[in-house]
């Protein structure tokens, strides 16, 4: 079966000829029925890529075929078969949950009984049926996100684009959304999921694409990707400090037992060939600089390690 999505050298440059190139000629394919994740730090180009695939932005170069329709030449046809759950909550606070869904359903071209049935189904699916008549303005953040989610599904799309759907919400709502994604996929929807949370990508995806600075730097199943990292370990030092000197990182990188070092979120993350041999050197260098370490974790290779390995930077900045 041909892939349901075929992306060919998709490029976006703002203000050509000299402006920023947000997406630099990305190419990949997505099979029908899979959950495909984009993983990358903020500003990597994930949202821009989704925007081009959903017809929000015009690509500067390249094209993508979604179920055979070109996003450049047939954007309306594409929009009819895809659903999008945007990163920011896009709802009308003054209207009720039901009124919101009815409106968005109409925008998808649904009407009459089909529309009403679909709206009720969605409200049930996301667990908001009891609050259907209340104004969205009174909802909590998690509830808004669930409704935001439902709004993208009303027309039962074959393909669903989810752009960082779990940013800044409580663990319960996040759990619900992840379960919903799995359920939808089980029912046959192809899912494109962008996130900068490694755990989500690992839990959900059949295949993962790692993006950085507008380029696709790795693509494959979780197993394939972690194998790229090889036999290295990850050392994670939890610090008391909020900031560290760049010279510390340089010193760590210079150490023969260290492959890569990066700092983010009060953690120094190190890629090392062997944790046991690297640990004494690392601790020496760190304490020499007077930095206090509160905890040390030793981890198996994972996506973050891969990212660090490939780019020298942390996934989370």
């Amino acid at each position, binding site marked *: 079966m041909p892939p349901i999505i075929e992306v060919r050298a998709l490029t976006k440059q703002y203000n050509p000829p000299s402006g920023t190139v947000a997406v630099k000629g990305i190419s990949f394919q997505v099979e029908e029925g899979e959950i495909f994740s984009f993983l990358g730090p903020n500003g990597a180009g994930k949202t821009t890529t989704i925007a081009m695939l959903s017809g929000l932005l015009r690509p500067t170069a390249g094209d993508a075929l979604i179920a055979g329709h070109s996003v450049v030449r047939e954007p309306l046809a594409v929009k009819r078969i895809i659903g999008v759950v945007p990163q920011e909550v896009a709802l009308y606070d003054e*209207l009720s949950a039901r009124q919101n869904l009815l409106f968005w359903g109409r925008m998808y071209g649904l009407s009459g009984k089909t529309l009403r049935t679909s709206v009720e189904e969605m409200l049930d699916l996301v667990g908001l049926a009891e609050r259907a008549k209340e104004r969205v303005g009174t909802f909590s953040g998690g509830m808004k996100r669930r409704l935001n989610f439902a709004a993208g599904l009303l027309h039962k799309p074959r393909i669903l684009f989810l752009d960082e759907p779990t940013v800044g919400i409580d663990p319960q709502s996040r759990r619900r959304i992840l379960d919903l994604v799995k359920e939808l996929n089980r029912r046959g929807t192809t899912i494109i999921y962008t996130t900068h949370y490694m755990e989500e990508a690992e839990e959900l995806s059949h295949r993962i694409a790692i993006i950085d600075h507008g380029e696709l730097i790795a693509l494959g199943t979780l197993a394939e990707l972690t194998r790229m990292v090889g036999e290295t370990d990850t050392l994670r030092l939890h610090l008391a400090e909020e900031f560290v000197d760049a010279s510390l990182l340089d010193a760590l990188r210079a150490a023969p037992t260290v492959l890569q070092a990066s700092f983010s979120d009060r953690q120094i993350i190190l890629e090392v060939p062997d944790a046991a041999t690297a640990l004494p050197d690392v601790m020496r260098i760190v304490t020499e600089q007077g930095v206090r370490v509160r905890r040390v974790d030793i981890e198996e290779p994972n996506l973050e390690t891969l990212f660090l390995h490939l780019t020298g930077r942390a996934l989370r900045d």
Partner: protein
Amino acid sequence: MGGDPVRRILAIAVKDIRIEFSERMTWVVFFVLPLLFTAVLGVSMGSAFSTGETRIPVRVVDEDGSRLSRHIVDALASSSSLAVQSAAGEAKVPLEVVIPRGTEARVLQGDEAVVHVRRLEKSVNAVSAAASVRAALTPVVRAASVARLVLQTAERLRPFASPTERKAFFYAAFEAAYRALEHVPVRVEVKSVGRGPQAAGLSGFEQASAGQLVTWTLITLLGAAEALVSERVRGTLRRLLVMPVSKTVILTGKMVGRLSLGVMQMVILILAGQWFFHVNWGRSPLALTVVALTFALSVVALGIALSTLVRDPRQANGVIVLSSLTLAALGGAWWPLEITPPLYQKVAHLLPSTWAMQAFTVIIARGGGVSDVLPEIGVLLAFTALFLALGVWRLRWE
């Protein structure tokens, strides 16, 4: 899942209208306040510009006590719009007429004499009474001029033997002139060319109504300037753009929503004006409808054009307040263009509000029909096309 665009346009319009009315106070601002304004302005303008049936009390202080001053007092007393009180009266009056001592002497002497008409308070009655006094005393002033001329001429031919003879001669001339001036064989007959019932003159409410209609609907319709800004800020614009909905449909939907709000408001104001204030909106409901619709269209289009200048809802709000009130003031909704300088009138004609006010005035005051306001309708349609073209050209969807 095609769905026709009309349904989507209506869905967007209905959604916008729902959002507008989700705040309950909107009803008050939308309907109650315009009527309240029209009521207050109508009552005030009515009393300010029409002469009432009741006589306004004025106090006359005759310090001269001469035959001439008695003539003056008699002339005032015979006025149908004044109720003359003597100086002894204690009641508060808006106007006082003082005939100073020596008036007759000065007139006989050939010097200038002044009758003081003092407005004792700042009120409509005082202004009105002063005008009535002036009108009542005009024959007296003219008769006095004649008498003085006769006296002068006769005196030069043959001087008078005594002051008494002089005075008698003056009064003979004065009274003859006064009587003669009461029977002027030529009068002015005013014929208004209007065909409507208002040919006789507009009531205060009628004067106020069209202006208020234009002012309030301007504020509502220019709300179009917020069109995409608030959607953008909420994030819903992005979502709309990933829907199988073309940009044309989105824009049209928003315009239809705004237009409906404005038209609803106009209909209610016109009907309420008719029922509560007995405003006669002319002889041609068709003309009224067509003008109202084209005006609304042109203003919504202007709103879209303005929306290209604003980046956030706050800016939009400020721009809407500034533009709507300025357009109303410049357009003749607050004061008539008649009394403004020619340059002002030229500038005003660059605005749709002016043309709408002009058309409304023709319909209401002159009882005009569609054929009488074709130029105005044409101009409003041209404005619509121009503003829409500008707006669509410069509209940023990101």
